């Protein structure tokens, strides 16, 4: 390199370093200002797509979202949320709401969301969820929409409940079933299995003493799967606190992730004993209220979306669904992302939502 070009390169480096220092100083100032703002303001309003509550009973809450399209598909869609979390993960903010996406694409959308069981509701059982709450919501959707057929979308454990419902009520009226990250082989949820090891985990003693499974315990067990991630995400937040979009997204997901619901005591006993300990769904031995719930009885068109990097429901735990159901029209899609980013956020907008729309649209007329 000759002398003039070396000088020019050094000059560029110096200018670039100065630029970098200036930008870091600006960010440091922004961090202080936005840091104060962060603690003095609340996050964005979530779950604000206009809806009507059709029914509210026990832990069940049935919403109907007001259609926005000029014409809608014949078959209404009922979303069954996971019992540990709130449904607003599927309705974050405008532009990032799965519900809004479905409404704009012409679906008539209902959601079965859950509320916290009250102390005296500790005796709610799996039967109440599968043989009462879901069928009741399906009936109400039929009545409200005037249609006999209903498509069901189940997220995580909502998928398990939908499968149990579909395998027992296999003569209808479920027309299509879509499962997001739904576990079948509970042995493959290795850390959860270890936490609930029957030699050391006395579920009866725990539930007898607390009534309902406390949300703090559920949240801790989720967080223990990635124990360093909370601290790391707080460092990331501080790094990016100058960036409004990052902060907005962080607040939405953080609020949802920590807004865990307690689980009804007896319902949790069944999950632990039948699914975690005896792996009955995988072993084809599951029954609810004395009614056999065999996956082979599910014969409706089925789409299973799983995430490549799901640390809560690893692919190994979810992969058996397609092979086990009796449907002939069935498909599994493995998409990039994690347990939550599969269904919400920027990745979901690009990947899962359009896939779901093209699959379900063809089966909704």
């Amino acid at each position, binding site marked *: 390199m000759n002398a003039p070009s070396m000088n020019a390169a050094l000059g560029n480096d110096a200018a670039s370093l100065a630029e970098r220092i200036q930008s870091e100083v600006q960010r440091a100032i922004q961090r202080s200002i936005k840091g104060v703002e962060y603690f003095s303001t609340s996050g964005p309003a979530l779950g604000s797509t206009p809806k*009507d509550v*059709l029914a509210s009973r026990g832990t069940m809450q049935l919403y109907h979202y007001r259609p926005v399209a000029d014409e809608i598909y*014949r078959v209404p869609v009922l979303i069954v949320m996971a019992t540990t979390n709130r449904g607003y993960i599927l309705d974050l903010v405008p532009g990032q709401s799965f519900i809004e996406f479905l409404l704009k694409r012409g679906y008539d959308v209902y959601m079965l969301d859950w509320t916290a069981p009250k*102390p005296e509701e500790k005796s709610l059982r799996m039967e109440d969820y599968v043989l009462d709450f879901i069928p009741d919501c399906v009936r109400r959707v039929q009545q409200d929409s005037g249609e006999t057929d209903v498509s069901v979308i189940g997220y995580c454990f909502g998928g398990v409940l939908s499968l149990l419902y579909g395998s027992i009520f296999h003569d209808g009226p479920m027309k299509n079933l879509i499962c997001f990250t739904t576990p079948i082989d509970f042995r493959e949820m290795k850390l959860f299995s270890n*936490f609930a090891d029957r030699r050391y985990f006395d579920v009866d003693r725990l539930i007898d003493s607390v009534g309902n499974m406390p949300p703090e315990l559920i949240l801790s067990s989720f967080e223990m799967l990635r124990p*360093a991630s909370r601290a790391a995400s707080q460092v990331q937040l501080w790094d990016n606190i100058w960036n409004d979009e990052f902060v907005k997204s962080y607040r939405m997901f953080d609020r949802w992730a920590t807004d865990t619901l307690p689980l009804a005591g007896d319902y949790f006993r069944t999950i632990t004993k039948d699914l975690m300990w005896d792996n009955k769904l995988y072993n084809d031995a599951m029954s609810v209220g004395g009614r056999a719930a065999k996956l082979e009885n599910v014969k409706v068109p089925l789409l299973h979306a799983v995430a490549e990097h799901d640390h809560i429901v690893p692919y190994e735990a979810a992969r058996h669904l397609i092979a086990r159901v009796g449907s002939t029209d069935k498909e599994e899609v493995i998409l990039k992302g994690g347990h939550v980013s599969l269904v919400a956020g920027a990745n979901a907008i690009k990947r899962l939502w359009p896939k779901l729309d093209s699959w379900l649209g*063809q089966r909704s007329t």
Partner: protein
Amino acid sequence: MADKGNDPAVIWQTMIGELEKGFNSFANHAMGTPEFSRLMNQAGGVATGAQKQLGELMEKYLVSMNLPSRSQLVGMAERLQSIEGQLNEIKALLGQINRDAGNAESAAAGKPRPPRTKRPPAEKAQK
């Protein structure tokens, strides 16, 4: 611009990411052992028992101070929730009756429900 590999901010972020991954992987390995499960459940059992006793003591204390206890407030909330639930049911029923009566206006949404005639885009394109 400075080389990304020498950028202190990028180095810092990469380091945090690597530390997170490394610690998670180490902890997951340790938490996968039966010994961890035994210790965790022992500790959890003791904490839950203590929490329950404390809750019962607080309840007695509040009653003696003539203050509403948590369970009484929960009871009040429940009654409000049940009233709210019944109002929602009535609202939904009114909407249904309105629709059954042939009114174009839906009481709940305040605008007519769109027709259920939508076809998937691929099918439309074929026609």
